[in-house]
């Protein structure tokens, strides 16, 4: 008989509800911006283990030290932070096979032999060093390694490290290792 129409639900307020929800999520959440410098800490050495045999050859180690006044020393001489990267690149790459710079050993990676540097950068800090200076130095060290990796990738694969496939990246990582060790804390400065 009489076809009764159901009245339409007014939907204009759903937009308002959605806006409210949107504002709620905008306020309570953070953009996922977790980035930083990733590191691996050395495991605690066993007490019985001899320390002597872990000692690397002297030429393979450079000690980068930041004292309590945030002054930087590489090896034994004071250095400005802007020079650190190039110095570390030279140390790790050792292009002229200088007998005072780290030795390289041939290593077999995925069927090809590469000369892998045995250089280790040892980073020491004081308890009074500011975190900002420490991260700045860490950043320079990582930058040195990253640039070496880029150069290596360009030589071997003709592309920058970031554009390589995962397998190729693994090869580059093995060929140019990131040997940055964070030394046991010791009090170098006076309190």
């Amino acid at each position, binding site marked *: 008989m009489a076809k009764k129409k159901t009245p339409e639900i007014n*939907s*204009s307020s*759903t*937009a308002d*509800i*959605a*806006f409210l*929800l*949107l504002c709620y*999520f*905008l306020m*309570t*959440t*953070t*953009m*996922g*911006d*977790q*980035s*930083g*410098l*990733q*590191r*691996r*800490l*050395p*495991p*605690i050495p066993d007490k019985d283990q001899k320390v002597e045999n872990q000692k690397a050859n002297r030429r393979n180690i450079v000690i980068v030290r930041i004292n309590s006044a945030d002054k930087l020393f590489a090896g034994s001489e004071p250095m400005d932070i802007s020079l650190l990267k190039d110095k570390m690149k030279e140390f790790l790459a050792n292009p002229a096979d200088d007998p005072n710079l780290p030795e390289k050993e041939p290593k077999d990676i995925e069927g090809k032999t590469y000369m892998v540097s045995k250089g280790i950068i040892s980073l020491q*800090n*004081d*308890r*009074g*060093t*500011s*975190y*900002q200076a*420490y*991260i*700045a130095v*860490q*950043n320079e060290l*990582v*930058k040195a390694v*990253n640039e070496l990796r880029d150069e290596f990738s360009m030589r071997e694969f003709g592309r920058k490290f970031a554009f390589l496939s995962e397998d190729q990246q693994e090869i580059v990582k093995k060929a140019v290792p990131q040997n940055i060790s*964070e030394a046991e*804390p010791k009090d170098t400065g006076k309190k």
Partner: protein
Amino acid sequence: MSKFGGSNNKKNVPGISSGSLSDIVFMLLFFFMVTTQLRETENKVIVKLPEASESAKLERKDLSANINIGTPVRHLQSMYGTDARIQLNDSFKTIADIRDFIAAERDAMSEAERSLMTVNLRVDEDVRMGIVSDVKQELRRCSALKIMYASRKPGGD
């Protein structure tokens, strides 16, 4: 006649339908829900991350444990002073509590993923290294060796 007369040309402009507005807003909502994450803890320390141009993104955000180090926020300074403090979860803790914290974080993860856990050190740039070294030593003792120094890209906020 009246077609060209233009006398009764009172044509109504059709109203813009707002029915799809809610769809658009919902899409925005879902976008933000997917790309953001809930702020799970309240910050009790001021952390201004240091700048580092080489910082890389953490791949597995769900496998990270956060340790905040910095000076307490303004309204807590009367109670806790302005010295750098460690914040785990929601409260101030000491070095000795890190072990329990790491153990609890490990327990919350599945067995296979425990070795992938990264400890995210969110440290204020003005903090001295002494407290950071202590935390690092304690982490080594707990064999939580994967760490990340949280930092931000220069230029960004």
